[in-house]
């Protein structure tokens, strides 16, 4: 008669339980885990690429009024709608979005689960009248040739 797991059973008698004592002993998420989104409005250029690639439509951009200073852009990442696919971060040309390893996203009100940021998009300076005339003259000159 054989007891194939007798050794294991005996060993397990004296080894520690394999249960993770989670809330007492904190645990780091593995590297590359796609958790809570962090958004850096300083880097964003409001190109809207992240909105295009987000399949559940979790990202919204609100544009404010244009004035001399620029335009207020507000980006909202709705984590209660996100699938944590990281497409937005991969497609962002400026690396403004990152998925951190923070996994614990608990809220009693789901509207708290929103990451947002806002910045003022500078309007590019208007070209001076002179350059416009110059370019016109140039095109006319090249057209007559």
């Amino acid at each position, binding site marked *: 008669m054989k007891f194939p797991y007798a050794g294991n059973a005996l060993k397990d008698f004296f080894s520690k*339980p*394999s*249960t*993770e004592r*989670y*809330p007492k002993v904190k*645990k780091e*998420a593995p590297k590359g*885990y796609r*958790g809570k989104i962090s958004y850096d409005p300083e880097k964003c250029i409001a190109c809207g690429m992240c909105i295009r690639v987000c*399949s*559940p*439509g979790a990202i919204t951009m609100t544009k404010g009024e244009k004035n001399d200073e620029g335009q207020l852009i507000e980006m909202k990442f*709705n*984590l*209660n*709608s*996100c*699938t*944590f696919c990281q497409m937005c971060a991969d497609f962002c040309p400026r690396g403004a979005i990152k998925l951190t390893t923070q*996994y*614990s*996203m*608990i*809220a*009693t*009100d*789901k509207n708290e*689960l929103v990451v947002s940021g806002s910045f003022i998009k500078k309007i590019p300076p208007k070209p001076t009248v002179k350059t416009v005339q110059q370019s016109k003259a140039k095109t006319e000159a090249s057209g007559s040739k």
Partner: protein
Amino acid sequence: MFDDIITKSKVKSPWLYHLNTGSCNGCDIELISILTPRYDVERFGIKLTGTPRQADIVVVTGPLTSQSKDRALKVLSQVPDPKVVVSLGSCPMSGNVFKGSYSIEAPLDRFVDVDVSVAGCPPKPEAIIDGIIKAIEILKDKRG
């Protein structure tokens, strides 16, 4: 006196009911994993129950499909008060990638009060444990 003891022990040992309303199974697998020896929520006195009539905490997964909506609400109404409704994952909160579909009735809070929302798709087991600990706190408050 007996009632006092029963109320106290009910808070110490909340029973959990898992309600799947058309989930993709991701959240369900993660919820099952916290009942395994690895995470073992029985440390907090939690026990999985098979009937909503004995449950204190209901964990809802899935985007509430049209087929399951009426049944899910019926099941939720069978849970005795005070109950705590935990919505697990993005699906019951918003419909996730399925939102706008003809067969999806999410979000869940259109129909019932959701006490705790756990974000993730699916949430990590540790996050679910955090959510359940929060649910136990709320249950304590509700029972007074």
